């Protein structure tokens, strides 16, 4: 088979042997599980349980928030102790909403039922996978059901299964392929059927001959003529989805485009395994394989219930005393964790214990000498030093023009830079600033719209009010004229009762004193209306003097505030 090549890449020490010496061990269920609700790209699932509820293993405890989200399940049976904020395995060290479960030790499953995807529509199958919480287990945790549309023409040329696992230290996919190749292939069959894929290529870096053999055997055992296991050259980041697609098919999927539009789609082997478990066994995603490696005495792979504390997991591999940090993921793209007391989540493919010796702090940063090493190493064919320059100077627009968002943060550029510049840190910084700016901009646009809408409404209301007032005044004028007519009739009868009122209401006029002006009548009418409208609030009767005093004070303050707030408007309502 013809293989293609991607530019750049690096070949660091792989350190993979240590953790592949022993088979996958099952990490025991802990007493307390902290299950974060937000474990995938997309919206945070709504909690379905509250403190005190009993839950079964595999029970849905968080419902997907819309389609761009993925459900969350209890990893074992027990009682919900709390739904509260807990620290997340995230470089920020911030907390997020978690369901805390106290296990009852019985590990009691929900009723498990396989899902016959052949007798359901594609949409139903996607919903099923969403509710089974299946997400990409390569580390990106993108909801799998969102990648399951075949794209143009309702079929896919090539389905790619990613078993490359190019990051140093990580071996969870390697071991999964060695031990559970058949299950993976069953998952692949489902994917192939759902995506109507013409052929399936399983890409595995050639430093994993046992995994290649196991997968080849499973493909042959299944008699799948349309599947091929391909050993690809070992070079970081050959396991990046875009790089693997390029190596296997020669197709380059640009940033921001759906790969199905190019006739390919790529899933991780772990994801294929999870799909098999969800569909064929009726088991939602509640556990995953995690490599524990680095500065530990017994590096190994574990099958871990999601929500298990990392500390508990790490202890099983006996971290060495000089361990000074915990990294989730590999040494090239992983993140330092703020604490050991965080749960294993769907994105946890590896826990790496670090030490000064294993990962020495970088030598002092020097200025960029434009040597171009980074550009040679960049698998995305970017000019990292230009991106660095613009990100550092906070010229984000330029950074975007130089395709900042095509950067996959693989770390190759930082790896080779002779000036020891933490290049990727600058890109992470620039990207999050740009995202923040964009959301601020969106908020400002919304506020502008709201504000303009309100202004329009106020203008309209003012107009309407003016119209109403005019109408009312017109009506009042008519009434007053009538009243006047009556009054003049009455005066002729020489009953001067109304006269003093009229007098006090008008200026000492030259006109006949007994004749009230139309204005005065209008004012009187308005006062009358106002009196009629004044309703005594029900809760102001039978008040103690203290309460009355308080109300008076409040009224006074209100008046003052009104005067301040609307100096040009009369107190309204």
């Amino acid at each position, binding site marked *: 088979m013809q293989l293609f090549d991607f530019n750049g890449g690096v070949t660091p020490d792989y350190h993979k042997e240590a953790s592949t010496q022993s088979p996958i061990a099952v990490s025991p269920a802990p007493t307390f599980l902290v299950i974060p609700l*937000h474990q995938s790209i997309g919206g945070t699932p709504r909690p379905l349980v509250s403190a005190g509820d009993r839950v079964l293993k595999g029970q849905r405890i968080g419902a997907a928030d819309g389609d761009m989200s993925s459900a969350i399940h209890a990893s074992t049976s027990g009682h919900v102790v709390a739904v509260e904020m807990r620290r*997340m395995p*995230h*470089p*920020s060290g*911030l907390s*997020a909403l978690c369901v805390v479960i106290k296990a009852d030790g019985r590990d009691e499953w929900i009723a498990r039922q396989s899902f016959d995807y052949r007798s359901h529509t594609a949409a139903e199958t996607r919903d099923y996978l969403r509710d089974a919480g299946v997400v990409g287990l390569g580390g990106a945790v993108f909801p799998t059901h969102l990648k399951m549309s075949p794209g143009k023409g309702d079929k896919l040329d090539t389905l790619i299964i990613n078993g490359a696992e190019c990051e140093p230290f990580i071996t969870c996919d390697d071991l999964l392929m060695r031990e559970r190749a058949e299950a993976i292939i069953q998952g692949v069959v489902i994917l192939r059927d759902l995506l109507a894929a013409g052929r399936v290529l399983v890409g595995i870096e050639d430093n994993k001959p046992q995994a290649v053999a196991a997968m080849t055997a499973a493909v042959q055992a299944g008699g799948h003529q349309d599947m091929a296991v391909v050993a690809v050259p070992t070079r970081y980041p050959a396991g990046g989805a875009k790089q693997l697609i390029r190596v296997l098919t020669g197709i380059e999927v640009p940033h921001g485009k759906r790969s199905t539009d190019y006739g390919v789609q790529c899933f991780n082997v772990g994801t294929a395994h999870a799909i098999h478990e969800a569909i064929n066994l009726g088991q939602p995603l509640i556990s995953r394989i995690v490599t524990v490696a680095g500065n530990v005495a017994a590096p190994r792979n574990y099958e871990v219930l999601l929500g298990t504390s990392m500390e508990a997991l790490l202890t099983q591999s006996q971290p060495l005393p000089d361990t000074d940090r915990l990294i989730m993921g590999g040494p090239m793209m992983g993140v330092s964790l703020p604490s050991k007391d965080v749960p294993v989540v769907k994105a946890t493919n590896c826990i790496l214990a670090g030490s000064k010796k294993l990962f020495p702090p970088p030598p*002092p*940063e*020097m200025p960029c000498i434009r040597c171009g090493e980074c550009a040679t190493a960049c698998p995305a064919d970017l000019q990292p030093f230009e991106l660095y320059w613009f990100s550092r100077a906070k010229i984000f627009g330029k950074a975007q023009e130089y395709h900042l968002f095509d950067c996959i943060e693989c770390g190759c550029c930082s790896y080779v830079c002779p000036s020891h510049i*933490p290049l990727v*840190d*600058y890109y*992470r*910084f620039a*990207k*999050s*600033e740009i995202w*923040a700016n964009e*959301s*601020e901009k969106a*908020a*400002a*646009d*919304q*506020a*502008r719209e*709201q*504000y*303009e*809408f*309100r202004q329009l409404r106020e203008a309209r209301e003012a107009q309407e009010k003016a119209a109403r007032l005019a109408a009312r005044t017109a009506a009042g004028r008519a009434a007053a004229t009538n009243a006047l007519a009556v009054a003049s009739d009455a005066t002729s009868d020489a009953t001067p009762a109304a006269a003093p009122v009229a007098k006090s209401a008008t200026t000492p006029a030259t006109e006949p004193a007994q004749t009230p002006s139309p204005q005065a009548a209008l004012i009187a009418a308005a006062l009358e209306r106002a009196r009629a409208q004044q309703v005594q609030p029900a809760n102001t009767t039978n008040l103690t003097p203290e309460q009355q005093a308080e109300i008076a004070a*409040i009224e006074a*303050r*209100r008046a003052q*505030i*009104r005067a*301040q*707030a609307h100096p040009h408007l009369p107190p309204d*309502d």
Partner: protein
Amino acid sequence: MLAALLVMALGAVVLGAVLGFAAVKFRVEGDPLTEKIDAILPQTQCGQCGFPGCKPYAAAMAKGEADINQCPPGGDEGIRKLADLLGREYKPLSAEHGVEKPKALAVIDEQRCIGCTLCIQACPVDAIVGAAKQMHTVIAVQCTGCELCVPVCPVDCIDMVPVAENITTWKWKYPVVAIKPVTTH
């Protein structure tokens, strides 16, 4: 000679007519400069700049009647962007208009709210919902944090709560350039 002059004059007239026609025909609605300035302003609509909202301030700046350093929510970055756009000298935020504060949202203590609707009238972006004598509440995503609702509340039940960082809004920090050894005391 005369012919040449005539031709020139004729040309000028024709061109003038075309330009005049184009000016009428393709007139841009609104003032694009005001729009551009308004796009930079944070749309908090708080009035701290001394204008009844961001747009009026933008219009005043476009006419050269207002300085570029009067908007506290826009902060330093906003001033820099305005300086850039308008080709004016950067200057720090003028103290008389206020200080840059971290963004906060209004939260109504629903126990104490008496339903007076004053805050609804004060809110420039309709971020408060509620009816007369009903409890009021703030729609957080719409609140710009302008604080206009705070002074009008007769029972002081509106608090400005700073927006806490969460995992989605968390940002990677600017990498520290550690070339110079930090002097420790």
